[in-house]
């Protein structure tokens, strides 16, 4: 177990270092000068040069990489070029929106997908299965921004139950803040739930064909108990894998939903930073996301061991 963990940790660290080099190099290559963007079309070339010097953009590439990477090691993420505040402050403001949103969406999608998967798998080929999977197919196909707009018109404009968008901040109270995350969470969760339900169903169907299921049934175990105790547990590995990927997506890949609901989340911070060539923000946020994805993957790897005792004893 500890060797398994150690190996995973070394791979994770190496991935982080490699990613930092790639991220830095790629952003240096893309065209665009943050100083010129700040000063616009009426500023002279000399003025842009003055600002570049002030921003520290004229230092040699390798030096800037070492400075930045060294800062990361001591958890110093640098200062934003455009906002001129520490990147970590920007990230902290955004994570309190993105993380709860991702968690709510993930909980919703799991709560919908697992029962639907169980239902469909146990009624394989029958009308209930066909309807459930039809709806799931629809859920995968519908663009989430369109679905989000429909939700807004229904719940915000017509019923006036929730705001049409925006985020009042946690300072405004837990309920107003949560309320503004509800619709985006539903809009994010449904397509994810649809995917997860399909994965859960096919994983379950595969397991249900195994000999030990027939044995369990043959020895007189009720179908429901077989489904929950034996089948679901064994079908969890593909489900967990997808869940891990979905979490990483939900954390920062929600830019479209954040735009539709004008939420100040991580995805929008990243998008804005890219368009403004706030390179240091892009680099640091991407690195944080890389770290988050690696951590989630590590967690998923470890959770395999929880659901599958054979992985625990394997060295």
């Amino acid at each position, binding site marked *: 177990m500890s060797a398994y963990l150690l190996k995973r940790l070394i791979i994770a660290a190496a991935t982080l270092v490699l990613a930092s080099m790639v991220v830095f190099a790629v952003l240096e290559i*893309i*065209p*665009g*000068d*943050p100083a*010129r*963007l*700040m*000063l*616009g*079309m*009426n*500023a*002279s*070339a000399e*003025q842009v040069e*003055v*600002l570049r010097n*002030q921003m520290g953009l004229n230092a040699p590439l390798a030096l800037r990489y070492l400075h930045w990477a060294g800062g990361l090691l001591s958890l110093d993420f640098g200062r934003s070029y*455009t*906002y*001129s*505040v520490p990147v970590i402050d*920007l990230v902290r*403001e*955004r994570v309190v929106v993105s993380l709860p949103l991702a968690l709510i969406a993930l909980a919703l999608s799991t709560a919908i997908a697992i029962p639907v998967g169980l239902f469909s798998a146990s009624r394989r080929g029958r009308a209930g299965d066909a309807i459930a999977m039809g709806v799931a197919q629809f859920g995968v196909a519908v663009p989430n*921004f369109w679905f989000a*707009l429909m939700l*807004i*018109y229904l719940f*915000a*404009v017509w019923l*006036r139950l929730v*705001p*049409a*968008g*925006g*985020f009042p*901040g946690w300072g405004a109270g837990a309920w107003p803040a949560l309320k503004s995350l509800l619709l985006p969470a539903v809009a994010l969760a449904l397509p994810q739930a649809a995917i997860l339900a399909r994965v859960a169903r096919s994983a379950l169907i595969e397991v249900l064909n195994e000999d030990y299921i027939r044995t369990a049934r043959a020895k007189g175990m009720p179908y429901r108990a077989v489904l929950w105790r034996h089948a679901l547990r064994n079908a969890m590995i593909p489900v967990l894998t997808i869940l891990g990927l979905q979490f990483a997506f939900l954390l920062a890949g929600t830019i479209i939903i954040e*735009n*539709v*609901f*004008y*939420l*100040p*989340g991580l995805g*929008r*911070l990243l998008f*804005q930073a890219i*368009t*403004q*060539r706030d390179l240091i923000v892009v680099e640091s946020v991407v690195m944080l996301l890389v770290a988050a994805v690696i951590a989630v993957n590590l967690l998923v790897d470890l959770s395999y061991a929880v659901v599958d005792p054979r992985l625990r004893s394997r060295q």
Partner: protein
Amino acid sequence: MKLWKTVLAAAAALALATATSAFAARTDLVIGIPLEPPHLDPTAGAAAAIDEVLYANVFEGLTRIGPNGEVLPDLAESWSISDDGKVYTFKLHTGVKFHDGADFSADDVKFSLDRARADNSVNAQKGLFAAIDKVDVVDPATVKVTLKNPQGSFLYNMGWGDAVIVSPKSADTNKEKPIGTGPFKFQDWVKGSSITLVKSDAYWGAPVSLDKAEFRIVPDAAAAVPALLSGDIQAFPFFDPDSVAQVKDDPRFHVVIGSTEGETILSINNKKPPFDKVEVRQAISYALDRKAIIDGASAGLGQPIGSHMSPANKDYVDLTGRYPHDVAKAKELLKQAGLENGFKATLKLPPPSYARLGGEIIASELRDVGIDLEIVPVEWAQWLDQVFTKKDYDLTIVSHTEPNDIDIYSRKDYYFNYDNPAFDKVIADLNLTSDEAKRKELLGEAQKILADHAVVGFLYELPKVGVWDAKLQGLWENAPIQANDLTKVKWSD
């Protein structure tokens, strides 16, 4: 039981809120803006979003620009100009305080103007201050500005957001915590979400009606409509023209179509063959069908232009008839240029929809006369880098939103690559002229030269589409400069 109590309390609070609102008009406002300002210092950035939150609300200058582009007194209550047009003596308002309590005086004016024109200045419109030779404090309420040469546009220049007066104590921290002299003071900025201003009780001038104004950032045009319909946001001064149809017949809203200072043009690289031939550029002008472009790119809103001047400007000359849409004429001109078989070129398009949508229409119009365009979509950062700075382009579409900016065609090394000493002479004369009639004549001449040479393809003036609650009054109809002036805004009943 507990739930019932909450419900009852909420109902009571609601009843109370409705009751009070029946007696007094609302004093709060939520305004939707599409782009977030990168920071909040108008003297250190070109982003229009900075001025759209702070101009006239938080920061004030010696002069200011009014709703129709006129120059009005602001912190300077009056001024006199020497006979040679070189010395401006400004008489300042007294009893003015910055929001941090510091007193405003002539020293702050000197500090602000000297800071903007210093060697290490990062003022995005440093050119506005180029004519200043020195700034002298006469007494705390009088400041004297001496120019190197007479400059007709000096008072106008001092009304720009980039020329607002800041205090030496807060100048370095305005990016995060703006401190001005205006009727609103900055309260907070939730990054990515909103910027809130509140009424400043210590304001020196006429008090404003609003107690609180929140600028909420709504980047997606599709989200603006439901935000209005649900009442979450009560005004979008810069609304997406394509979404107007969804609200224009709704009596709850005012839809106001005004003008901007944004000349939307098909920029041409004048030094790059075959665009160095005037026949080729004129052929392009004949090939353009402005009406089709306005219909497709701006939902039919926006006025066609024939040169680089807003139709709302008092010095505007109508040159839209100079190149009527005429495919045969365009082909003939190409033939004269020895290009009867047409040619290939690229059209680089920045992100705004006027460029992306307009670009497709222009590409098809130019194809009709034999010019085959390859469309290259670019981000703003790429556009500034490749097109604007490195001049690596054939054609591009962009809206030049700075007011009164016809002089850009005389700038050395500007991305049009247009070099015409005769035009430069007109602009040089204009800069030295303050007589209104003479200025009008020179500006007319400048417009005609640009049209005759078809320096770029002049398309249309970008419209300002404002949508707001029908009960809201006092928002600007036009955008002579980029601003959302809230000083006269109030709710009726």
